[in-house]
């Protein structure tokens, strides 16, 4: 497998090739005042020249001075929308005249995707979700059939990014088919990470990437590592959260948190679901669906007549403790990749790094 970097002058041929291959190309695009993920018809749909201002509870599009397509971060959508969609059918059931029941599961998904513009934090998030849902005793299939991942290294961290202190970094580290680094032009240094990625690049118009260009690309990514705007505290966060159940920090957050659940919707690793049972009017046909759910929902912990976690305090504690602490106990790693979406999309601007640092310092 050749992993020699190549230089692409444009992403048009790539997008066209992927679509010709029968894949839905999902990537960032400007929609309703934000850069969200959606199906792209061509590389023109990428948000060339658009950047974002990111603050706790704040997200604004702004015009860039260049035409970079990937000069942004922390949009409100993540790739879980396609890998584990918000509502999937689990089975249909039919009751026959003799009372017997037959359960029919849907066939595996056949939609083929290419995910264009996957940031390293999101690559890690996809791996985290695969670990949670795909490696237990009852693995859950991803909805996409054999997706292609075209990652993009980060050269410009967003104001709310903290991937480095979350154990990651601006450099994609495996799990991709192709990784791009965007340089001014824009031009793209592209490297294959798999045989499928190599085949994709081999079919595109490209040049060999000069060493100096490759060095520039590496330097741009390394530079991003130093410019993170915030960080989680160092040390054993599992222990910190396990010991922190009665910390006054939770009471303080509870005064601000609306338990709206935005953080769980935008978080690329949040995976909680609920099951929904339906029936038709005749009563002979029933179905079950798997639907996204949030631990902030009051019914989430319902038991014997009421929720176990009634207070906002307990629900925020559950979310943060799970994400940074008990995720280790349950799945052997942290649940947070430092993408910063929860900070941006919290309507009151609660910052997970600030709250965790408060826990560490109290």
């Amino acid at each position: 497998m050749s992993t020699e970097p190549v230089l692409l002058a444009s992403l048009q041929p790539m997008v066209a090739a992927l679509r010709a291959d029968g894949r839905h190309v999902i990537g960032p695009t400007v929609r309703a005042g934000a850069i969200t993920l959606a199906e792209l018809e061509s590389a023109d749909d990428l948000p060339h020249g658009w950047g974002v201002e990111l603050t706790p509870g704040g997200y604004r599009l702004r015009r860039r001075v260049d035409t970079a397509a990937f000069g942004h971060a922390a949009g409100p959508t993540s790739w879980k929308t396609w890998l584990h969609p918000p509502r999937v059918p689990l089975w249909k059931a039919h009751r026959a005249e003799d009372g017997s029941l037959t359960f029919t599961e849907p066939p595996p998904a056949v939609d083929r995707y290419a995910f264009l513009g996957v940031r390293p934090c999101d690559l890690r998030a996809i791996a985290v979700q695969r670990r949670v849902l795909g490696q237990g005793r009852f693995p859950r299939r991803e909805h996409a059939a054999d997706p292609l991942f075209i990652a993009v290294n980060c050269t410009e961290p967003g104001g709310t990014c903290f991937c480095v202190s979350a154990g990651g970094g601006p450099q994609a580290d495996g799990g991709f088919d192709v990784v791009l680094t965007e340089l001014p032009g824009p031009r793209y240094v592209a490297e294959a990470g798999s045989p499928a990625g190599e085949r994709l690049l081999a079919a595109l118009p490209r040049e060999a990437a000069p060493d100096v260009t490759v060095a520039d690309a590496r330097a741009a990514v390394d530079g991003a590592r130093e410019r993170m705007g915030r960080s989680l505290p160092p040390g054993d966060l599992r222990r910190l959260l396990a010991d922190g159940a009665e910390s006054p920090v939770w009471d303080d957050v509870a005064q601000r948190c609306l338990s709206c659940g935005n953080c769980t919707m935008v978080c690329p690793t949040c995976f909680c679901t609920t099951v929904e049972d339906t029936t038709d009017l005749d009563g002979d046909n029933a179905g079950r669906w798997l639907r996204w759910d949030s631990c902030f929902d009051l019914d989430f912990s319902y038991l014997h007549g009421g929720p176990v976690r009634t207070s906002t305090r307990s629900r925020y504690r559950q979310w943060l403790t799970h994400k940074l602490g008990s995720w280790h106990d349950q799945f052997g790693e942290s649940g947070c990749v430092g993408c910063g979406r929860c900070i941006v999309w919290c309507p009151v601007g609660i910052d997970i790094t600030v709250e965790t640092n408060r826990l560490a310092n109290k």
Partner: protein
Amino acid sequence: MTGAMAPVPYRVVAREPETADTVTLSLRPLDAGIEPIAPGQFTMLYAFGVGEVPISVSGAADGRLYQTLRAVGAVTRALHDTPAGAVIGVRGPFGIGWHLPAAPGRDLVLVAGGIGLAPLRPALTEALGRRDHFRSVTLIVGARTPGDLLFTAAVAGWAAAGARVEVTVDRPADGWTGRIGVAPAVLDEVDLDPANTTAMVCGPEIMMRFTATALLRRGVRAQDVQVSLERNMRCGVAWCGHCQLGPLLLCRDGPVVDYGRAAPLLAVKEL
């Protein structure tokens, strides 16, 4: 996804009313059934068109599955009322069940509160199947009233098989000549060697905590006390995240957990 989420159809071949609101359903699969289920493990039982609930198995023998359930909500009411001959859905087995001690010569104490006797029954049956492995086998049953006692016809058989069975009720009825009081209080009457005791406790969470405290006060080690924990369960297969109790996913790391692990988690309000 196969086998995890699609229920397996089982026919109700018999219904045994236990109390005014509790029934034991005898179930047979229409085709191939679920894998063998161990005492303390649970299944998700599906009432067609209504919904699903987690129920710990109360017996498994001769190709039949026995599920004892109390009608307390829409789904359990539908399951409870399922007539003989009708079909329900079963998913499972899930979870970690009761752990009978491997070391011989121990005192085995089972303490059941209310419907908690149902998940303990298969553990008792298994223990009595090799009664000589234990120095003693004791079952303490607590119920609200004499009319709420489960499996009353089986008690004589358990005693004949070598179990000491002690029953107590919260509220006596006329003609009741047995104990009146809570299950933890009966522990004081049981002769056991605390250093060599394995206890299994099942019932409402508060009842389990008081019983475990009484056992610890007798000198039984926390890791030798097993409890069956309960939280909201939607999927049973560690997908949905609902059944978390701190670091534990109860469908996968429980529901049976040793008290050494459970006690600090149960002590945190709204965990």
